[in-house]
């Protein structure tokens, strides 16, 4: 079953077209990474799923129900973590969660149970301070706790890790991985390593449409570049290697920069051996020989080029 369906969504602010006929679906129990440059329309898309913004045209379905702009009943399925969550600073974490629980219609006992579960999970147990004294990381963790409070079917995290230091990011990513056991997660970001770490499928938002969409592994395979990088001990050797490689038939292109030579070739596993033969025949000493794996960053840069 699809938890989320975006059908032909367009949105413009005045003359500026942000989303242009955006279509995608997110199946149940996946971690979907929505990536794109700053200003690509990620937050706009997420706010429309929440009913906070009105699409210029198109339709959004959450768990099969239509999202209505303004008051939308579909929010009962959703937990939402904004990019910079803003809380009432004069409350404690527990008070805030209790308020959210009441708003969402949980019973007193349920609220108590959920709060007792969630506070330790996000590492805010026993912290009696008011929220205004919290660090960004703590606020982000409280944001996750409130998002998970009503055991949502869909957890939407907008740039949840962008403003955090490496440790804070790791904590949030770990939390999201845990949460993903019980719910579907949509995670928007421009930090590609975070996506590679937790997401199983991705969508790349570029110029208002989804330029890429699919399982992370498939996307990487499609964009696999068959390349080898060889590092020699000095620039003279690199130059020699470059000249020899240029003459080989199976080589598509060769580039050299300082001591390193990067080669694009057909069938690197088989033809790579020929390169190694060449190295040994010509007595070119090397320090490193590496098959280049496609990174999401390369894919990203390739697509938005």
């Amino acid at each position: 079953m699809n938890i989320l369906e975006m059908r032909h969504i367009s949105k413009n602010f005045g003359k500026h077209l942000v989303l242009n006929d955006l279509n995608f679906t997110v199946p149940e129990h996946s971690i979907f990474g929505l990536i794109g440059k700053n200003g690509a329309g990620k937050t706009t898309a997420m706010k429309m799923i929440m009913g906070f913004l009105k699409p210029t045209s198109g339709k959004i379905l959450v768990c099969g129900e239509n999202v209505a702009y303004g008051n939308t009943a579909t929010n009962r399925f959703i937990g939402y973590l904004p990019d910079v969550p803003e809380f009432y600073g004069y409350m404690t974490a527990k008070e805030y969660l209790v308020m959210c629980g009441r708003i969402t219609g949980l019973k007193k006992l349920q609220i108590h149970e959920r709060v007792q579960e969630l506070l330790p999970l996000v590492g805010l147990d026993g912290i009696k301070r008011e929220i205004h004294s919290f660090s960004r990381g703590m606020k982000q963790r409280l944001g996750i706790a409130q998002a998970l409070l009503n055991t949502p079917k869909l957890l939407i995290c907008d740039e949840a890790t962008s403003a955090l230091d490496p440790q804070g990011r790791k904590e949030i990513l770990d939390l999201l991985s845990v949460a993903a056991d019980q719910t579907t997660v949509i995670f928007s970001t421009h930090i590609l390593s975070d996506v590679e770490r937790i997401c199983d499928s991705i969508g790349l938002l570029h110029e208002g449409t989804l330029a890429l969409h699919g399982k992370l592994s498939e996307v990487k395979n499609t964009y696999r570049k068959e390349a080898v990088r060889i590092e020699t001990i000095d620039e003279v050797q690199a130059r020699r290697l470059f000249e020899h490689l240029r003459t080989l038939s199976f080589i598509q292109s060769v580039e050299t920069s300082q001591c390193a030579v990067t080669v694009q070739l057909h069938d690197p596993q088989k033809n790579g051996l020929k390169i190694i033969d060449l190295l040994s025949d010509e007595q070119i000493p090397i320090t490193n020989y590496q098959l280049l794996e496609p990174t999401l960053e390369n894919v990203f840069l390739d697509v938005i080029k």
Partner: protein
Amino acid sequence: MNGFTAFFKKELLEAIRNYRVLILFSVTAIFGMMSPLTAKMMPDILANVGVEGMVLKIPEPTFIDAFTQFFKNFSQMGTVVLLLVFGGLLSQDLAKGTLIIPLSKGLSRHAVILAKYASALTLWTLSYALATLINYGYTLYFFQTISVSHLFFSLFCLWLFGAFLLAFLLLASVVTRGAFGGLLVTAAGLGILLICQAIFRMDPFNPLKLVSENVALLTGKAAFDQLLNTAWSTCALILSTLILAMMLFKKKSI
């Protein structure tokens, strides 16, 4: 209903923790105390600043004078205090983005407006009642009671004006952006009402009449029936302001 109760409680907690309750109650209590005191001491003050050769003839202050001061304080300074204390009632929430999470948890937008209005009205009512009681007590202590007509209705008119001001403030905060938009529009709106009253003589339906005729009502110089009509029309105005605020807020981009 869940949402309304939870958000109403949150509003009251916010007012307490952000010292709004403290400020509002102290200022109104001071008004309650000061009004009869100024009325009592006014002849002495004037006598001391009297210019040589001028004879000031001041009648003995009465019960009415104490309430004149009270109404003057509340309709001028009181309005300013009310606007300053509740100026950010909705604007702050919108400008800071603190409403996003509660709304994402399924809080209805109608409940936001109603809870905010109900909490502000509760605080206004309580502080006003406190001020009135203090004022009444001191007035009884300083002056003998004289028979006045429509004292309760006169007080009610002032309260109703406060209620109108809060509703208008909410509507103004819905239609504007930024942390002070609502406050500015409300101040501008009051200015327009003043102009309507002063220049165009649009009296019968002008809520400002509720705070300009209280004393005249006490001394029997203003007609009760007319003011009653203004009170009814203000009630209708409050209701329609709130409904409009709810309708517009429902369609507002957050």
